[in-house]
């Protein structure tokens, strides 16, 4: 059984259809990449899968439970974690507190002692390399640091599945190498990942399987080499690759 | 009255909680001129409208400087302005109840079998005329285009060469002028007192929610409906019920329209 499944997901904003009957299924411990030109519906699909947006039609299932259209905390409690393409930090909180929110209120592996929760939050910050920024205000971080915080916050609720939205975009080449390492580390830990990235090259390094979304429909589904060879990808991506 | 509120919300994304107090101020200014110089109420309308011009410039200046999120900050700011106006009016006019009791307005107008109070007829005619003129100005003039464009997307409007600041300022002048004139009309029909403003503000908000921001003809229809509900409340249950009914209508409309106006501006 897939861990996450979207069946016939369609979304229309006014008369404009952003997604048209999308079927996706992510298996446990699979790392799946999602590609597509700007405006192809990637973030919309993430919002539907993460319980933030109710689709016009279609259903979303997570581990045998229907979670279509939220509410978002249900998706969060069941084990979906996500990052946002444009970081959405708890601006007024410290970096440590931002991570403590998820650690404190998660439903799985909850620590009863405050000291344990703090240690867990510090461990997560160490994982993304923000240990020395624990006391800083989240809003004061640089973009690169904010992206790491996004990941730490997403991990703080101890999710079984991560939806990662363009973790690498806007980062320096060095930052992107680190992102590749993050993906590898998460995969080692048995995390299931569904990731949007702008760069085909980066996704090809980390993904077991890739989907290509174009004009609201999945046009290609297969392992990276097969996707690369597909003429539909070239058509959808003409001039878009490697911004 | 709701027109002015709705225009300000449209153009500057500001909720003006002092709106009713400005109307009351217009009423007091009108009353003072009437009592001192004996001006006819018809002449008082433009005079009171002009008298609020300085206030319009102050409002424009202040609201332009409110930080994001505009709706909430402007709400807090104008809450303060409302307190300021009420205090000042209480200091000048000593919190007394004033009425422009022009005798010519009290006379009734015989229209067939209908006997109408002249003051109410004047108010109704003036309101219709204002709405008509405003509708023409907004749809048929370059100024109207500028105001409408500014209200839809100020940045885009600025890009195509529209003087956004000018459009904003003229909207404030017009909106507060309307408030001043409304105040005079109001003062010919009801007693004005410094605390009357809050209820008027709430009514203006209710009207704007019902009509949708900036739709002139629906504001008129909504105004009639609200006026009727208010009249029925007062005659049916007594004047004491007016305030709670207005508050209840505001709650109801906020909840009912939270998909439209409220949600649309919430982000």
């Amino acid at each position, binding site marked *: 059984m897939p861990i996450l499944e979207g069946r016939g997901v369609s979304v229309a904003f006014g008369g404009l259809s952003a997604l048209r009957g999308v079927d996706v299924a992510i298996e446990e411990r699979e790392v799946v990449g999602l590609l597509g030109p700007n405006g192809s519906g990637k973030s919309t699909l993430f919002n539907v899968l993460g319980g*933030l947006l109710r689709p016009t039609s279609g259903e979303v299932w997570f581990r045998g439970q229907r979670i279509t259209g939220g509410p978002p905390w249900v998706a*969060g409690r069941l084990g979906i974690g996500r990052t946002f393409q444009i970081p959405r930090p708890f601006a007024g909180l410290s970096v440590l507190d931002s991570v403590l929110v*998820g650690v404190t209120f998660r439903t799985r592996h909850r620590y009863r002692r405050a000291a344990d929760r703090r240690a867990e939050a510090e461990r997560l910050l160490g994982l993304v390399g923000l240990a020395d920024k624990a006391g800083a205000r989240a809003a004061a971080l640089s973009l690169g640091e904010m992206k790491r915080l996004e990941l730490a916050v997403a991990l703080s609720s101890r999710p079984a599945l991560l939806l990662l939205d363009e973790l690498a975009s806007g980062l320096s080449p060095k930052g992107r190498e680190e992102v590749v390492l993050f993906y590898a580390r998460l995969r080692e830990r048995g995390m299931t990942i569904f990731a949007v990235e702008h760069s085909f090259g980066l996704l090809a390094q980390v993904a077991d399987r890739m989907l290509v979304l174009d004009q609201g429909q999945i046009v290609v589904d297969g392992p990276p080499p097969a996707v690369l060879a597909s003429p539909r990808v070239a058509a959808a991506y003409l001039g878009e690759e490697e911004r | 009255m709701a027109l002015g509120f709705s225009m300000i919300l449209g153009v500057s994304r500001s909720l003006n909680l002092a709106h009713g107090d400005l109307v009351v101020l217009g009423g007091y200014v009108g009353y003072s001129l009437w009592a001192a110089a004996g001006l006819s109420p018809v002449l008082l309308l433009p005079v009171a409208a002009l008298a609020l011009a300085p206030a319009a410039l102050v409002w424009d200046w202040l609201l332009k400087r409110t930080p994001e*999120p505009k709706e909430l900050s402007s709400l807090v700011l104008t809450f303060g302005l409302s307190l300021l106006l009420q205090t000042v009016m209480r200091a000048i006019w000593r919190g007394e109840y004033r009425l422009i009791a022009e005798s010519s307005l009290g006379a009734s107008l015989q229209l067939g079998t209908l006997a109408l109070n002249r003051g109410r007829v004047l108010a109704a005619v003036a309101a219709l005329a204002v709405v008509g003129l405003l509708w023409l100005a907004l749809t048929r003039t370059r100024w109207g285009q500028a105001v409408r464009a500014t209200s839809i997307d100020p940045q885009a409007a600025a890009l195509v060469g529209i003087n956004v600041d000018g459009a904003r300022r003229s909207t404030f002048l017009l909106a507060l002028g309307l408030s001043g004139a409304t105040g005079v009309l109001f003062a010919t029909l009801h007693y004005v007192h410094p605390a009357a403003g809050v209820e008027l503000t709430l009514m203006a908000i209710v009207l704007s929610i019902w009509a949708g921001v900036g739709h002139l003809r629906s504001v008129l229809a909504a105004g009639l409906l609200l006026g009727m509900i208010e009249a029925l409340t007062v005659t049916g249950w007594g004047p004491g019920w007016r305030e709670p009914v207005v508050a209840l209508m505001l709650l109801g409309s906020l909840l009912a329209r939270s998909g439209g106006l409220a949600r649309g501006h919430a982000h």
Partner: protein
Amino acid sequence: MRSGLAALLGMGVLAAVPPALGFHPYYLFLLSTAFLLAAVASAWNLLAYAGPISFGHAAFFGLGAYGAALASLGGLSPWGAIALGGLAGAAGAAGVGLLSIRLRGAYLALGTLACAELLRGLALIWSEVTGGGAGLAGIPALPVLPWLPRVLTEGRAGAYYLALALLGAALGLFALIRRSRVGLAFAALREEEERASLLGLRPLPWTLLAFALSGLVTALCGGLYAHVVRVVEPDLVFSRHYSILPLVMATFGGLHTLLGPAAAAIALYLLSELVLHPLLPALHQVGYALALIAVILYLPGGLAGLRRGGRRAHP
């Protein structure tokens, strides 16, 4: 945090002195009113800490005052009556909090304002219970506690210490919340509600809790006020002042800070009554309005909590 508590304790000791020195009862009355307003401002700030900006705290103050007055006139001991009034305020506030299901930000603020106006109007109409516009008179005075020295409880001094104790309790509650899991949930929902829900936090119960706690403290102040003044009228206890002043004071003192709102409340109130009132008897309220306007325009730091959703990092 520890230094904050120490400062609190120090001020508490300092504040305990005036009655013992035999201050004029008028000044004791002024100070106790200042403490009550400071407690209301802190309660308002507690709600703002969880996100909602209230324009309707008069509703909770009035509920507490009327609830306590009615219970007291009905034969309950004043202490029990004040507690009951507090519970009425907490329940009413939680009811108002239900508006947050559909309303956000400025529109929730308008909703709270409408609720306060609604209650004030109802208090005026429902004269069989509330006494209508004339209000309720003859509320019994607070009994002198037998186990305390008379100098601490007699006359104005009793009200003074009670107001001070209430302020201390309000600040203590807020300090406790800020350090606890509850405070973390409040702050997370305030800063980025959607993000917090994705982490498994359900917003509604926390928002209702914030409303109820804030309403409780505010209503206790209202109940105490009713027993000190011994009269309640709609225009007195449901006055818009109890909606405007806490907002002014808390924003001026610094939203979400522990001591700022209370300090600003005491300073602004005393400034208004002792300095502005003798100078401009009719205009002394202007000070509050100007303070609020200045804070919005020139002290964005003081308004950090109002700027929700305004800031986003752009790549």
